[in-house]
């Protein structure tokens, strides 16, 4: 609880970038929380039509992958600290492993495929969790700049941003699951049996109606998988930022305690429940999709 309140207190760090987001544009005071979701372009890299520039989302993804690796190594491998600490960390790591094994992999994947696909779904779960959780810690990785008083040094302000609140990121993750699903389905069943397994047992007369729907359904999985994560993170951040932004919209400092209180409540809800649930759900659904492609009759 102490750590949680410390985390909530860091919300205050996000205030300056929100104050900057409400700058006057075109003579009219306007507040745009969506300003915080622009990714900008830090290091432009262009390969023909491909835009591989390093931007805010890419920076967050790099940080997220490094932290994911670091988390695994810290929990399971490193033997520093006092006598009991490595054991305690290992217990936490094994708890995470057990959730990934029993709740995610064994629920969706058939027994023969667990060895091959457990690493993938467990990585998905951990990676999405880490990317989600760092999005709720104000980090000095924003497009807004401020100058240190008395000097010429320009520093980025602290801001909340989730790489997963960009549809490209979640769509890329969902595409991986999509490709693996059909690859495994084709590999284990062969094309004829696999595509036949899409179509449920219905009278032949229904086929013109059912077949297009089922094919569409396969692609809707892609949409639902990516949009669920994307919209959850976007809406959560938008809600928190809008609540804090009310101070600047109304231009009234006295309402600060109320709106910060409300924002903190949403913040705790997001950090405690939504972050973990979304990571879990993405991994679990990936496992279910891959598993049902490998053994369609179940």
């Amino acid at each position: 609880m102490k750590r949680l309140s410390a985390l909530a207190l860091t919300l205050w760090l996000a205030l300056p970038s929100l104050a900057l987001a409400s700058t006057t544009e075109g003579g009219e005071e306007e507040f745009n929380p969506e300003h915080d979701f622009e990714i900008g372009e830090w290091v432009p890299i262009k390969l023909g039509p491909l835009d591989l520039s390093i931007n805010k989302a890419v920076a967050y993804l790099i940080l997220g992958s490094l932290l994911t690796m670091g988390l695994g190594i810290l929990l399971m491998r490193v033997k520093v600290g006092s006598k009991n600490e490595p054991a305690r960390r290992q217990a936490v790591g094994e708890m995470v492993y057990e959730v990934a094994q029993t709740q995610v992999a064994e629920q969706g994947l058939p027994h023969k495929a667990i060895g091959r696909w457990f690493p993938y779904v467990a990585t998905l779960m951990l990676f999405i969790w880490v990317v989600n959780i760092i999005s709720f810690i104000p980090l000095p990785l924003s497009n807004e700049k401020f100058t240190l008083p008395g000097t010429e040094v320009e520093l980025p302000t602290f801001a909340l941003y989730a790489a997963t609140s960009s549809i490209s990121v979640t769509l890329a993750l969902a595409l991986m699951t999509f490709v693996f699903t059909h690859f495994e389905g084709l590999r284990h069943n062969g094309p004829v049996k696999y595509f036949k397994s899409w179509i449920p047992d219905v009278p032949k007369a229904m086929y013109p109606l059912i077949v297009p729907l089922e094919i569409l359904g396969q692609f809707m999985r892609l949409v639902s998988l990516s949009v669920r994560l994307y919209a959850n993170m976007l809406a959560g951040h938008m809600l928190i930022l809008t609540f804090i932004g009310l101070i600047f919209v109304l231009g009234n400092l006295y309402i600060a305690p109320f709106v910060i209180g409300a924002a903190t409540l949403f913040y705790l809800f997001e950090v405690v429940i939504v972050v973990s649930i979304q990571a879990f759900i993405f991994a679990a659904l990936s496992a279910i999709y891959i598993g049902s492609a490998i053994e369609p009759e179940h």
Partner: protein
Amino acid sequence: MFNLLAQEAASNVDAGKAIALALGIGLGSLGAGIGIGNIFGSMIQAVARQPELRGELQGIQWLGFALTEAVVFYGLIGGLLAFVLV
């Protein structure tokens, strides 16, 4: 005069869009609220009947919760898309 009328029409369209977005999200969350209530209610009943199944049921419960909750956000994204594009 004409200019003023055009301005008023534009602001009416904006107001209409805002109302539509709010209505859409509100109705979406109504449905999701009912669904989530159902899921947790059933979970309570199930655990009350067979407490030893709690661990197994919890995974299914959260899966159902997330699947239901996402419905609001499909509405939100659809509404935002319409808001931005129209």
